[in-house]
């Protein structure tokens, strides 16, 4: 079988999604046999986009002109473009203050001096190009990355999950942190797939996988209010990974 040619790269992000892939230590040797990491700056030297790619796996949101250019180019050269990680899918932490002017933020950090290239409001990939599949998570689960790659070999893209973190939390028989302990757990509003990682260790879900498409926000807010969390606090939390949360 011919190796699949992959382009793996990051935009504005922490490299966590790419690192998650490198963290698949057991599977890396297999992966190297089936895939040609033809463009993977984090892990190898060839630095030019050459030819076509079977898939581009892109981490991070877009906030600089050169990133935009690279993204468009990848889109052009790839059969599939796959957004990996919450930043690529929803904007992520970098988009935390997207409702404020970039210039204000810049001044706050860099003062009056100018920086090399100007930046714009961080955008999730699908604001700029068509995205064929998304894997969310900050960082995404290794299993999901491996299944994505296995799927590519079989000719299929992953399917989004449509249930909340709570579902998996209940399957793991955790004591509910929200209803039993009154902690601000976002589980019911957030897309599952992480096997309720955090609540399973008694840590409230911080929502790193982004909004559940069918979330019942109104009812959730009512429950949070009952537990003493006002709207603002809840929204501050929700928007940590996805600035687009609105009622």
């Amino acid at each position, binding site marked *: 079988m011919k190796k699949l040619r992959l382009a793996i790269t990051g935009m504005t992000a922490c490299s966590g999604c790419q690192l998650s892939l490198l963290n698949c230590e057991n599977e890396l040797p297999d992966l190297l046999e089936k895939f040609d990491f033809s463009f993977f700056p984090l892990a190898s030297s060839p630095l030019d986009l050459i030819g076509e790619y079977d898939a581009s796996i892109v981490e991070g949101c877009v906030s600089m002109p050169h990133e935009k250019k690279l993204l468009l180019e990848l889109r052009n050269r790839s059969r599939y473009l796959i957004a990996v990680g919450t930043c690529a899918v929803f904007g992520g932490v970098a988009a935390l203050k997207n409702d404020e002017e970039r210039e204000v933020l810049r001044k706050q950090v860099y003062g009056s001096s100018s920086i090399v290239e100007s930046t714009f409001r961080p955008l999730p990939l699908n604001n700029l190009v068509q995205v064929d599949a998304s894997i969310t998570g900050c960082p995404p689960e290794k299993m999901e990355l491996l*299944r994505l790659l296995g799927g590519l070999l079989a000719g299929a893209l992953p399917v989004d999950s449509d249930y909340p973190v709570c*579902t998996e939390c209940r399957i793991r028989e955790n004591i509910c942190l929200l209803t039993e302990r009154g902690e601000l757990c976002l589980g*019911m509003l957030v897309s599952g797939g992480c096997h309720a990682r955090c609540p399973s260790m008694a840590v409230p879900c911080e929502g790193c996988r982004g909004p559940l498409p069918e979330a019942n926000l109104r009812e959730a807010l009512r429950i949070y209010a009952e537990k003493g969390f006002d709207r603002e606090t809840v929204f501050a939390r929700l928007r940590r990974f996805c600035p687009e949360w609105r009622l």
Partner: protein
Amino acid sequence: MLTRFISDQNLPDFMQKLRKFGGIEGPLRGEDGGVRFGNLSDGTTPDIHAIRTLLPAKKYLFAPEERLFNYTLQEGYKILLEDISPVTLFALHPCELAGINYLDRLLGGDAPDPHYAARRSQITLIGISCLPDEFCSCHISPSPLQALSDIFMNIVEGGFVVTVYSSRGKEIMEDMKDLAEERELPVPQDARRFFGVSLPLNVMSEIDTGLPEWQKLADRCLGCGACSLCCPTCACFNILEFAGLDGVSSERIRYWDNCLFKSHSMVAGGAVFNKGRAERFIYRYRHKQRGFGPLRGVPSCVGCGRCRAFCPIGLDLRVLTELLERSAV
């Protein structure tokens, strides 16, 4: 009736001897206060008075996530049946037993689900009597399901009155002769009496889907699925297949599914048959109270009270039953 009596003092020894017949799983109270079925083989004391576990014993028969097949180029799809060792489920409440009875009907039978059958054949059921609390409805709305077990233990003053219902149960009790004295004892009335009775007629009348309550409930439902995950008889499943990294093999996995999710009724192209939550509620209610397909006419709510106890917003389908009964009159 000839029964056996096991005293409280003899319970640990009973459990000890039970290990001969395989692993033991029973209700355990965790450090966090949660009650779950867990391993008792190491002599841990079960919490036999706990009212309800977070998940029912169905998790032993029908796992939340189970590999069904793997595919290889040479052999095609090959069924995966892990080696399952014998296990005794200890201290199952009648509702739990009735739940298993229902799953037996759904997934067992003449052409059983092989994975279910493999697990089931290794399981011994030991029931225990209990006292319903405010969430339970076994004492209010009867279920046509039976509470079948191999051995049933009624809690009485100072010990347990033990009745045997199967040859497997008999075999076990044979071995316990020194711990259980044979006595002429009345079997106490217990929650068990609420199972195995026929249903009053009005439960079978058509469901009034026009009640505004459906929508009211639906507006509040979070779609978290807790209610069906914890239901002893909910057994909808999804099947997904994942390709291996060798480019040829793959595995097929079965997951618990849930009729409150949109994808449950979604077909290709994105059409959804149960679009709104209200419709999904009706679907769920119909399934629980009426059954469909081969189990049409077999209500499957066993009254364990979990769905209400664990629903984050405290939704209670019993309210609907009352309303529906009233509207049917």
